[in-house]
């Protein structure tokens, strides 16, 4: 009985974590799409953006302050999460990972 409960518990735990993992991966993919489309990055594909690479101060992406404020609007529009000022944005926008974590906390 205990073993069944243990196995059931483990299955439940791993399924939820797996679903959560899928959801988080999907969130990151969506974020990359939003960045590429919303910021008019014509020559970069979403999958080329690494999860941990710097979004700003990164020459290969070439994003600047105008992109930052546009990203604030895009995040609001696509994920319903408000960024009240650019200081808050600076923390969230470091990378796809930090942005996903930021959104996750607030959704």
């Amino acid at each position, binding site marked *: 009985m205990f073993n069944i409960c243990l196995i059931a518990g483990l299955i439940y735990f791993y399924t939820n974590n797996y679903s959560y993992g899928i959801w988080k991966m999907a969130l990151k993919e969506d974020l990359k799409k939003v960045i590429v489309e919303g910021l*008019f990055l014509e*020559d970069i594909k979403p999958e080329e953006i690494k999860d941990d690479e710097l979004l700003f101060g990164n020459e290969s992406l070439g994003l600047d302050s*105008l*992109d930052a404020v546009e990203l604030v*609007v895009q995040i609001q529009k696509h994920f319903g999460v408000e960024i009240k000022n650019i200081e808050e944005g600076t923390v969230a926008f470091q990378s796809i990972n930090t942005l996903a974590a930021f959104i996750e906390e607030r959704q």
Partner: protein
Amino acid sequence: MRIYVKGIGTAGGFGCGVEKLVSALSNGESRTKAVTLGVKGKAEVEAQVFVTDTSALFSFIPKKSLRRINNYSKLALLGASLAIEDSGIKDLDRTRMGIIIASGYGAMNTTFSFLDSVIDEGKDEHASPIHFSNSVHNSAAAHVSILMKIEGPSLTVSQFEMSFPSALLTARRWLEEKRVDSVLLGGVDEFSGVLGYCGQRLFKKDDVSGIKPFEFNKQTAIPGGGAAFFILTRDTDNDSEYCIIEDVSIGKLTTDKISIPEDSYLFIGADGNKISGQKYQHFLNNKNIVAAYSPLYGSFPAAAALDLAVAGVSMKKNRIFASPEYSGLKDGLRIIKEESKINHEKICCLKICDHDEYALIRVSKNNS
């Protein structure tokens, strides 16, 4: 004070660059594109319009640098790049170069993209800052300044049909004052579906194909966009300039006495718009040889810059080009019907607006 046109960059339905303009002038062909004006529904109408392909810009500026830049600014960047290249001036001091851009309507399409961002979901907080900052009229001049590293004063003028002549007046002043040593002066307007729709709602178009600039009682205007940019200088050390701009006069037909020298060609800015078109009739006489080139590039305010480009090109090539369309011209009036060697050393470009404002740009050849 005389000013010299040292470089010309043009882009329009005829293509990009001075040589494409010359081809269009020589073969008289007007290349329009079919579009639907109005959103699908009652308001839809098929129309021919003049649209410019700006892909030639990528040979001047890397695609990556153009990523947020809209069509209006791309037209300006293309015209500007072509003009600077065309001038061949190697040591152009960009800290002493001014930029003046004339546009009748500015970045129309981006203005509506900005409104889309708000209207789509009815949320003001979705307003796009990229679209907003690119919707301001002076965004084109800003992009030219930033991407081409031009640090002199920057000005954008919007005065409908008087935009370009008015801007030229200020360009001349900047050179006279030695505020700058050269001016990158351009006229640019982009085709906008909304504007085209408004045009056909406000002015019932007569059912003819092509602009008929001399059919003064008909509405034959064809909307479109394009750009013409000039490098203007205060002096010249050789004969490489296109032409000399002797004078720009701006005023009102009702108060000013305008005289066009007998030994000057007269290019009229008649573009198929009936109200202003009729006012050109007074200037058609049996003395001046006339031409109207709008059928090659379209009916939009910045086309006045293209008229000047044609004048410059005519002077440099020593050729005078046939007026592409002259139906409706009264007998006895002199018009350029065939391309030939230029016989006069003066060209006057005349632009008249609906409310009797006029501008006369006097151009001559450098014979010194």
